[in-house]
């Protein structure tokens, strides 16, 4: 297969070789900064939009943590800002659930999917495989603007009279289908579905583009097995997205039908708000199958790119090749395949056939094997290295630590015998926030610190970076580690006040501590955002073309690459991406031909 691709790419690269000159024509403000077709600018657009969303989504969590940590106290400032949603300075239940729902939706989809993949796929694919731009720059631009449109619609849902969607980020019907059952299931829910539809379209355009670029536009010599792991990870991410997002869309379209056209896909035998509905024969569980068929791959869509980023950054800063390159690819592939076969582990307690349940236990726990391989390989990568603790490297190490902590509790929850007790408790909150929330953020931060010089030709402030890392790492564990205990007490998730319960009201001081840690963590993220924008204009300038001493192609471009990336010919690749510390040399760039006396690996 790689041979045919090889030929294709040669055709492609010849076809493109004249192009950079075309792009030297005059660029207007609009074509350069707004409707840009340069993958680097689109990456920046995704990143900045993602940062704005992350601040909004993070702020939501601070607000509902205030309620959880101090349920008896009132905060008049909340009423100032949110009016009747927080009458008397206390968050109303409807508002609380709107906040948690939007926190989840925003962070999972808008930040850790679009913001993360959108940024690093766009930035790194052409730069690391040696292409002038994406296969279709126009589709790429469209992908961002559809995402932007989705953002506008989702944002507008926050300002509707009845509030945004409030049924949890999974929006299970019948709750999400019936305006009678919840305020948040009125117009806010329609806007949620419309926004997600635009979002899915954006993901598909982006994903198809990533796949075709990686397969067809690699430079001469860049065989598939010479690609950096970042690109492999992004490739599998894109495949997951392209195959699973349409299923979510179909689920949402049926939900829209149930809401407005009187169909009964998900509705049956319902008596709500004093009236019996005519719908009979639908299955509420059908939606969950459709949703989790995306929903589970989605968590890998979030975590795979960061695995790639972390592998790359760990190798570069250990000055040592990534250990087990082929095993890393194989484990990515295994995760990608298994990701499609485990969705029903979210549904062990829905009345799922017990035999089917046991099959999903088996497949779910199998994912622990490729994950374990990756963790051991990362640890072996830093073993006997020569480690430089840049902020990016620290975040990559933090990523591994957090990924271990969160991954191991997956072995608990993936086992239906334990899930039947811990399902939908705070234990689950702790598990997935650690394994895909915090660890994905760590990977993303690592990526931002590492490639900031490529994005803007400047460094971010290191001291702020170190403060950011240490405070975030400490707070991540302070916030989420004790939540396991709340789950082990059986405390359900999405409870805003536990005082009326005998079994769950023993954690007052703990909840207060978690809230304070959340506020600190959020403030430090604001500091990171400040560092980001400040360094964009005032950061230390990058003086050398290859500031980290990396082997990959993006560091062979000029410090401020124009549209087209390389002046003159695209460099040819002669070796894999991880020749660090080989034959006594610090690193050997991918563009250097293999010497006659060189050892082979």
């Amino acid at each position, binding site marked *: 297969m790689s041979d045919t691709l090889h030929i294709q790419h040669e055709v492609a690269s010849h076809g493109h070789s004249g192009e950079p000159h075309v792009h030297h024509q005059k660029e207007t403000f609009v074509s350069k900064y707004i409707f840009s077709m340069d993958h680097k600018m689109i990456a920046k657009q995704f990143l900045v939009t993602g940062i704005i969303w992350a601040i909004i989504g993070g702020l939501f969590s601070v607000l509902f943590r205030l309620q959880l940590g101090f349920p008896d106290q009132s905060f008049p400032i909340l009423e100032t800002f949110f009016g009747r949603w927080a009458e008397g300075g206390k968050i109303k239940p409807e508002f609380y659930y709107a906040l948690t729902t939007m926190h989840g939706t925003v962070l999972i989809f808008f930040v850790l999917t679009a913001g993360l993949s959108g940024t690093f796929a766009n930035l790194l694919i052409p730069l690391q495989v040696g292409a002038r731009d994406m296969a279709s720059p126009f589709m790429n631009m469209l992908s961002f603007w559809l995402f932007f449109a989705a953002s506008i619609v989702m944002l507008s849902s926050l300002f509707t009279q009845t509030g945004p969607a409030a049924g949890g980020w999974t929006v299970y019907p019948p709750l999400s289908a019936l305006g009678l059952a919840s305020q948040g299931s009125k117009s806010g829910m329609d806007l949620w579905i419309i926004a997600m539809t635009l979002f899915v379209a954006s993901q598909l355009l982006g994903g198809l583009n990533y796949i075709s670029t990686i397969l067809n536009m690699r430079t001469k010599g860049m065989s598939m097995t010479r690609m950096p792991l970042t690109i492999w990870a992004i490739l599998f991410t894109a495949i997951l997205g392209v195959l699973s997002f349409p299923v979510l869309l179909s689920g949402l379209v049926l939900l829209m039908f149930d809401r407005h056209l009187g169909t009964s896909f998900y509705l049956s035998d319902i008596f709500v708000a004093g009236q019996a509905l005519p719908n009979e024969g639908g299955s509420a569980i059908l939606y969950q199958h459709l949703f989790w068929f995306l929903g589970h791959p989605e968590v890998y869509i979030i975590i795979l790119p960061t695995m790639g980023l972390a592998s790359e950054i760990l190798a570069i800063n250990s000055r040592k090749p990534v250990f087990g390159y082929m095993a890393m690819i194989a484990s990515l592939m295994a995760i990608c395949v298994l990701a499609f076969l485990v969705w029903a582990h979210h549904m062990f307690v829905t009345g799922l056939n017990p035999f089917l349940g046991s099959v999903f236990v088996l497949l779910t726990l199998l994912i622990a094997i490729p994950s374990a391989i990756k963790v051991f390989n990362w640890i072996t990568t830093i073993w006997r290295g020569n480690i430089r603790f840049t902020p990016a490297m620290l975040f990559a190490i933090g990523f591994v630590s957090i990924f271990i902590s969160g991954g191991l509790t997956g072995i608990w929850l993936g086992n239906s015998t334990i899930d039947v007790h811990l399902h939908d408790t705070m234990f689950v909150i702790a598990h997935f926030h650690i394994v895909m929330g915090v660890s994905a953020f760590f990977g993303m931060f690592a990526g931002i610190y590492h490639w900031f010089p490529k994005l803007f030709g400047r460094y971010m402030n290191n001291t702020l970076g170190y403060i950011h890392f240490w405070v975030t790492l400490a707070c991540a564990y302070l916030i989420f*580690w*004790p939540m396991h205990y709340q789950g082990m007490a059986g405390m359900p998730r999405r409870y805003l006040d536990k005082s009326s319960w005998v079994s769950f009201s023993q954690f007052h001081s703990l909840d207060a501590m978690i809230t304070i840690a959340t506020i600190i963590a959020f403030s430090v993220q604001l500091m990171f955002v400040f560092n980001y924008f400040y360094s964009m204009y005032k950061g230390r300038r990058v003086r050398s073309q290859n500031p980290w001493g990396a082997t990959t192609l993006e560091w062979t471009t000029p410090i401020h690459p124009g549209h087209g990336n390389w002046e003159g010919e695209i460099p040819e690749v002669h070796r894999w991406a991880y020749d660090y510390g080989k034959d006594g040399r610090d690193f050997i760039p991918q563009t250097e031909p293999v010497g006659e006396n060189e050892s082979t690996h």
Partner: protein
Amino acid sequence: MQNFLIFAILILGFIITFQIARASEFVSVIRGEEKTRKQTNKINAILLLVFLVVGMFGVYWTQHTLGDKILKLGTSASDHGILVDRMIKYTLIATGIVFVGTQTLLFWYSFKYQESETRSVYYFPHNNKLELLWTVVPAIVLTILIGFGIVYWYRITGAAPENAMQIEITGSQFKWEFRYPGKDGVFGKKYYKNIDEAHDNPLGQIWEDAANHDDIYVTQAPMHLVVGKPVKLIIGAKDVIHSVGLPHFRLKMDAVPGTPTTLWFTPIKTTKDMIKETGNSKFVYEIACDQMCGAGHTGMRGEIVVETQEEFDQWMASQKPQYAKIQEAAAPAAATGDSTAAPAVKDTARAVTADTTAAAKKDSTGK
């Protein structure tokens, strides 16, 4: 004012941090960036080691302070819960070892292999033996966990024993309602369009079905169970998805409108046993709704009383079938004949339903 002060302090703190950060960058340029970099490298390496030690102590300390606030493993109040606790224990041991091992290696290696001019890196791109080792070992451990998990899972989800007591539990925004089949042991049929709270028919029972006439309806009061006697819950919902969460029994099952589900277990400790065991005089078994069901989700609370057979019989004797209540309401004029009328209805009901038992049973379990 207070808010303003907090805000001002935050801003001030931030400005100070930023100025220090900026200054340190200038200092590093003046002193030589390479030298500063090496110094910060050392500091961060030490901090990583410190984090490992403090973190591991934190893990111990969390267990120390929160350990007695959780449901202790092995103290479950149901037979199935014992299996769940055992599974958690095995998994905790396996994942605990991996957790301590990998975190220690990660942070220790980070510290040990910090940049040093005296060391050259070891070019070690791959090693098939090692890869095989950490593919096979996790695979074996996982196989064991999966094996136990599936065996226990089948025991938990297997068919309920013949002698199991049946109770129907229905969730709706935001309460739980219970129904006992009465003396005939059979639930009468119901249809959601018959639900009529104004006329005392909150579950939509079909009164033409005589099996309904002795069914006992309980709400806003605890569900009663007998210690040592298996119970099969037939779970339904009226409006949106709810979930019957039973933390002390370590069990949970969703309540889905239109699709009944079931869950069975044997309570092994009475409420009084638990009061003694936990030392909490207010102890009560709680039913927690575990599936987001709307604005009142947090307050969707039910209670269970586990008691001896005699206590249960006593309680049951004090309950009146819903049908009898309706009869009373329909004939308030005949108030004097109340006490005799209701049992009469019950008796005829039993006679009529005797041969429909099988059909009703099939209907009520929903499978």
